[in-house]
């Protein structure tokens, strides 16, 4: 098998219904964008799971490094004042 002839990999995002975000739901191989949309529809929406599909070449996605997880995300741990529950208010106005 000639590896250069393997169809490239695409990531598939599906919007379940109007008003919702597109959500990543899997990947597939396809020769081009048009075929990727068609195949995504066949593979990921056989039971009305979607009303819209996005596809993007997997190698175009830039991701954070799992090794940087602590550096990137831990600093938020001690910032409780960013949450509404941090503020204690009198009962009369606690619905704020």
């Amino acid at each position: 098998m000639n590896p250069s002839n393997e169809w490239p990999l695409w990531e598939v995002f599906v919007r379940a219904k109007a008003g919702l975000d597109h959500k990543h739901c899997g990947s597939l191989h396809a020769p081009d964008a048009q075929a990727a949309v068609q195949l995504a529809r066949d593979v990921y929406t056989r039971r009305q799971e979607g009303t819209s599909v996005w596809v993007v070449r997997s190698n175009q996605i830039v991701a954070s490094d799992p090794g940087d997880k602590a550096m990137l995300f831990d600093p938020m741990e001690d910032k409780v004042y960013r949450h509404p529950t941090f503020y204690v208010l009198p009962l009369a106005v606690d619905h704020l």
Partner: protein
Amino acid sequence: MTTQAMDLAPKEEHAALEEADLQQRFDARIDAGDFIEAKDWMPEHYRKTLVRQISQHAHSEIVGMLPEGHWITRAPTLKRKAILLAKVQDEGGHGLYLYAAAETLGTSRDQMTAALLSGQAKYSSIFNYPTLSWADVGTIGWLVDGAAIMNQVPLTRCSYAPYARAMVRVCREESFHQRQGFESLLTMMQQGTAAQREMVQDAVNRWWWPSLMMFGPPDAESPHSAQSMRWGIKRISNDALRQKFIDACVEQAAVLGVSLPDPALKWNAERGAHDFGAIDWSEFQRVVAGDGPCNRERLAARNTAWEDGAWVRDAAMAHARKRENLAPKMPATSPPRGGASDLGRPGVERQEAA
């Protein structure tokens, strides 16, 4: 050991220390019930075990399309034909979800396909049995898909997240497979002729024992089981799942009005489970080793499909490359269109579709 000392250590030793540290962190995450993602560090053995298991699982879905596909053109009614088509299409989709999960571990789709076609990779030995009558289609749904569901539900909690996610999708669809099979058999048993009822019983007789073998060898003879349990790849033992399946089937067989071909099958009040007869593991070994009724036929069908489809795959790739070369290049100065912030805006999709 101080940081400085670590820096002075020979390079290999340094790497080994790091590896031990990573291993320790990995073990701690497994013990805590954490999920492992594709880009996380993992021991090589864990990766290899997963590639083997997930690719075998994917091959089983793809080869599993063949015995049932055999009956698509011969389904007795349009309704049954539409159902069977949908089911076989689902199996193809399941194969795809699973190949994609295995690919996240760094094995290409073509590598996996090559391993299947050469006979080097295994698939579930159940698919090396023939589908001799229409009742086999319903029986596969009831027993084979039933056993598969038993095996697969615990995999939705597998420690390797891409596999677990694929299995959630698979299990959601698999339940239709089992129900349609049972309903098809029930229709024949309740509304059919004596000959049709006999046909159902014959199919159940042939598929019962191979279905029990789908859970794999007994725990005592399953060498990989302990390690897979330790890693959270496997959650419930082969024998425990097999027992659960048998207990469920006894009740379902009674509803259906068929007997199960095991004279030793009997409720054991003390164990709170059914006792059952000895499984012929020599048959299992023989079929796994390649000498089942349809091994050669299945592999030949996959090879033919791959070879016959080659020109289509190549032509689609050539067309895509040609289109890419013909497309007008965007001027380097043009502002980037549709960045991440634009993704949610209405109109972007329509624009792209135009």
